[in-house]
């Protein structure tokens, strides 16, 4: 299979990329890792007239914390960059848990985090992680930069709020107000499959007490689900058994799974509750350590 014809542009600056996008009148697509876009082009689900390859733009392949604690992921940060960063677990435990379970190892060497968020697959893993973390997308256009919260960024399956002339230059996570803890668990039938169910939990702890929490669910609804009630029930609490059980139940309640070849509705709800419990229970030693 091969895609329909397109013209290929390989800008070397963000400014140049934005100029190309502006000129294209919405007929251009940005190529970062291409691990979803290229298959879609081959299947002719996507047929952009112009492909703007951003891989030659220096300075976008980073992931790092600012002095104020804001964590930034550049547009060319690949899944493998996070997977292989041994220090990430201490800084961003939810991301560190998610990176190794994205797609398969070969896809992870090319695919990017920001590209994945922009692709806006309703069953994508990073969207749950970023909504649990309260993250945002930074879009740059001809008139400068703007920040769009990940919870608003996706406005439909495979659709996002970027204007045609905007480039998503980075994803950001706000500074923590406590010690970060969290995790991502994903059940998949085989490596590379979509999640049967996935759960992202992000916590910020002050001593044993949860001061901020976010929970995102993958694969158990028409799109990413923010389990806000489940997260809120944790805030102000220590992670004792009854609190954990309550959060697990609320997350399971808010999920909207459908019975399909990956499992029944009841099974998927059970997995959501199990994963919330498992992540929160395994955090307890870290909580003790922090006090």
């Amino acid at each position, binding site marked *: 299979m091969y895609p329909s014809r*397109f013209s*290929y542009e390989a800008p070397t600056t963000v400014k140049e990329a934005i100029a190309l996008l502006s000129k294209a009148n919405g007929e251009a697509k940005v190529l970062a890792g291409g691990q979803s876009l*290229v298959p879609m082009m*081959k299947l002719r689900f996507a047929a952009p007239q112009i492909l703007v390859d951003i891989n030659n733009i220096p300075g976008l392949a980073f992931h790092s914390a600012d002095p104020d604690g804001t964590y930034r992921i550049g547009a060319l940060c690949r899944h493998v960059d996070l997977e292989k960063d041994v220090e990430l677990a201490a800084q961003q435990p939810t991301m560190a848990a998610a990176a190794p379970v994205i*797609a*398969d*190892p070969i*896809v992870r*060497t090319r695919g990017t985090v920001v590209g994945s968020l922009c692709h806006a697959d309703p069953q994508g893993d990073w969207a749950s992680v970023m909504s649990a973390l309260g993250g945002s997308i930074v879009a740059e256009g001809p008139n400068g930069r703007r920040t769009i919260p990940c919870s608003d960024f996706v406005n439909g399956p495979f659709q996002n709020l970027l204007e045609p002339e905007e480039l998503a230059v980075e994803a950001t996570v706000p500074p923590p107000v406590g010690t970060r803890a969290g995790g991502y668990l994903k059940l998949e039938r085989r490596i590379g499959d979509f999640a049967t169910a996935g759960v992202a939990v992000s916590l910020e702890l002050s001593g044993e007490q949860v001061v901020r929490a976010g929970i995102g669910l993958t694969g158990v609804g028409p799109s990413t689900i923010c389990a806000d009630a489940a997260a809120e029930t944790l805030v102000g609490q220590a992670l004792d058994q009854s609190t954990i059980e309550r959060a697990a139940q609320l997350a399971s309640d808010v999920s909207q799974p459908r019975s399909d070849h990956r499992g029944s509705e009841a099974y998927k709800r059970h997995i959501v509750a199990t994963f919330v419990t498992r992540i929160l229970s395994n955090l307890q030693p870290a909580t003790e350590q922090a006090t």
Partner: protein
Amino acid sequence: MTSLFEVMPAETAVDTPVRKLTVNVNGKQETLKVEPRLLLAHMIRQALGLTGTHVGCDTTNCGACTVLFDGAPVKSCTMFAVQADGHDITTVEGLASASELDPIQEGFKDEHGLQCGFCTPGMMLSAKALLTENPNPTEDEVRWALSGNLCRCTGYQNIVKAVLLAAESLQHQEASKDEGETL
């Protein structure tokens, strides 16, 4: 008749905009003119005649088309040839030297790490990337590294053994090299 996967000519009609690219394939500099939509896998197979790179599923699932792109495994059916401009590609043909097989190839031979052989080039390149980074992997690490490469024949047992054997023989090679140096 050519395979359906190969109907796309590497060099296209005169009216199609083509781009010139220079790519280092298995240590050899190649300059080609390609249509932007030409896939890297097709460039390797048709323009360069290196048919060891196999196109299996053609949908980014199976990993048969895996090549090393600047040393990292990528699915060559999921990249455009133009993206390889200025980069290094290693295909399965680049593993063996003129006189001997790569220890990974020896491993697959000795442990019978293949049946039909279709997935083997991709398996060996994923293994190559793993052993370059982690010369002494555990069985779990081998299975993890190969989890993007599908094999429908073997059940993976002998493939994993082959990679572990290759790791062992590479360690022996390193050890005897070190001994040679101290002497």
